[in-house]
């Protein structure tokens, strides 16, 4: 853990350092921009910008980078002139361009990704608040982790075409570029439909629930429930009017588990440390960090393996602080976004509280990964009904559905044992009397 932690910190420092110095330089340069003279007028590029557009306005202008990739250098002048950045002019951001030495003789850009990483500094010059938010996001965590697809500023915002309210409509949401399946699911949701109605056009797009820049994994945000309650503040009160133990349901059942009625559901058993009151990270959990003798991560855990896992974790410091917190949720991200109107939500208790309910056919064990997202390991559905799990899965129980099978056997024995006793005793009494063996 220490090793990776140090690596992460080192990467973080490197990014900050790499971003910081150019950012300061860009800030100073911005002070020198002859703003009024260079600004666009009547949505037309300024005279200074026309100089740049003389080359960069040409369709198809691109540059071959050191790694062989092509980097588009084309900027549509009219679009840029209408953008919020037009008043800055080209040199407002591209402060390192010197016409005397431009274009450079040597190819100094290694890759498009490298260029984007450096370009973040330019944005940060003015949008440091947004950068700081982004820096706490799962996207930034992925960048630090070396994920080349994780979005930087330009991954969502086209810097030469940014206009106010660009992401205000469903069609313009930049998230769809990477999260296409979730986007399609959202389009069919009650939220997307509500936006078509002027009276409810305030219904959320992606950023309404996830935030625009400080996008966190749902586990860090306290689950999707926290996002839902942001608008539906009276949800608990409304549920308490008809749902027994509504507060408990709110803790154990994610909103989409009922409000996305067609979704496949699963029980996620999160490994939780009561002492630190936080979810356990993947390191130190053998099933999530394979090592000699540990269970293969491709195998689903059965009740005995789960018991060994919990016992092993607690034996490390001879406590019982490591427990499993169970939660019923939908199985995939897209399904979590296919939210239906509340009239279609699941409200029949028997849907979940009956034996064989499909809600309990899928079980995962999860820990928190380095980037804050959950890492899951499949477990056998039998872990929810095994007597062996009485302690290890002590934190999750759905009456009726996940009842312990051994207790069913004992109930049958108890009922028929009692029945056999009195029927047998009565029969023997009758036989003694019938054959004249009873003196009375």
């Amino acid at each position, binding site marked *: 853990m220490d090793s990776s932690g140090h690596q992460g910190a080192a990467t973080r420092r490197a990014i900050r350092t790499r971003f910081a110095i150019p950012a300061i330089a860009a800030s100073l340069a911005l002070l020198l921009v002859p703003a009024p003279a260079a600004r666009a007028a009547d949505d037309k590029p300024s005279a200074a910008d026309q100089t740049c557009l003389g080359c960069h306005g040409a369709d198809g202008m691109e540059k071959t980078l050191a790694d062989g990739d092509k980097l588009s250098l084309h900027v549509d002048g009219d679009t840029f002139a209408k953008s919020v950045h037009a008043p800055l002019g080209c040199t407002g951001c591209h402060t390192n361009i010197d016409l005397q030495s431009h274009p450079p003789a040597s190819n100094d850009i290694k890759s498009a990704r490298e260029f984007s990483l450096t370009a973040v500094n330019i944005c940060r010059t003015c949008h440091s608040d947004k950068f700081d938010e982004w820096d706490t996001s799962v996207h930034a965590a992925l960048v630090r982790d070396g994920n080349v697809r994780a979005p930087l500023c330009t991954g969502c915002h086209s810097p030469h075409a940014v206009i106010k309210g660009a992401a205000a409509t469903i069609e313009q949401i930049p998230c769809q570029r990477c999260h296409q399946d979730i986007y399609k699911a959202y389009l069919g949701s009650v939220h997307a439909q509500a936006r078509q109605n002027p009276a409810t056009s305030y219904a959320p797009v992606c950023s309404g629930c996830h935030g625009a820049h400080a996008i966190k994994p749902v586990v860090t945000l306290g689950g999707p429930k926290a996002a839902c309650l942001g608008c539906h503040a009276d949800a608990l009160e409304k549920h308490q009017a008809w749902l027994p133990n509504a507060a408990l349901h709110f803790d154990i059942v994610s909103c989409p588990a009922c409000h996305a009625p067609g979704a496949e559901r699963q029980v996620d058993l999160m490994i939780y440390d009561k002492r630190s009151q936080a979810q356990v990270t993947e390191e130190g959990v053998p099933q999530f960090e394979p090592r000699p003798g540990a269970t293969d991560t491709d195998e689903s855990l059965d009740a005995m393996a789960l018991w060994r896992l919990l016992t092993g974790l607690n034996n490390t410091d001879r406590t019982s602080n490591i427990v499993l917190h169970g939660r019923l949720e939908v199985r995939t991200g897209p399904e979590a976004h296919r939210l239906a109107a509340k009239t279609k939500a699941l409200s029949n208790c028997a849907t979940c509280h009956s034996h064989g309910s499909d809600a309990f056919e899928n079980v995962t064990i999860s820990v928190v990964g380095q980037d804050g997202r959950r890492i899951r390991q499949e477990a056998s559905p039998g872990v929810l009904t095994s007597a062996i799990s009485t302690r290890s899965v002590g934190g*999750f129980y759905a009456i009726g559905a996940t009842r312990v099978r051994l207790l069913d056997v004992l109930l049958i024995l*108890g*009922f028929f044992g009692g029945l056999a006793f009195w029927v047998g005793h*009565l029969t*023997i009494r009758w036989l003694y009397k019938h054959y004249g063996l009873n003196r009375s």
Partner: protein
Amino acid sequence: MNVVYLHPLPVRIWHWINATCMILLILSALQIRYVGLIDVTSFKTAVLLHNWTGFVMIGNYFIWLLFYLNSDKIKAYHPEPPKKFFEGAFRQMQFYAYGIFVGDPNPFRVTPYNKFNPLQIVLYQIVVLLLLPIQFVTGILLWDVKHFSAQVDFFGGVRVVDSVHVLIFIFFVFFIQMHIYLATLGHTPLAHIKAMFTGYEEFEDHDAAKSSADTSFKGDTTRV
């Protein structure tokens, strides 16, 4: 035929409320636990019925407790000295296992202060002083797991608490059959049951003759 006033009114009220509650709790528990297999009422109705009946039973328990704490008839629950207990328990088991078949009289004779045979004393002490309180506590914890989460965690989690609750439920499924059957073993099948309504227990003359030598036999008996 002799009669003895065995069951004071508070005890009878407690008993029949308790019996009704226990039947309702067992039936609603079966509906809750086996929804899908049993569909007499909805799950929600069964849960609400189970909860309310449970609270009635808890309140009713205090009728029994307060009565006996304020009555010298609590002696009925006092354990016998070990030697006397084991001898009496052995005789009672012998009666149920053989004597009753050949027509032997019940070796135990009731009085208002000694109305339970040795087996009953042990069993009722376990039921009333141990199992019912545990069932009440676990039931209350399960009634509002969120509110009592600290206590539920203390006992090992909701699954542990529920398992204890269900194990005692299974015992009562067994116990109530035995209780009803043994209640029919009076001098007539309905004698003990009738006594629990009227308060007066009837017993046959040969029992009275034997009991005349029993110094503990000092209840309000009447020959009829």
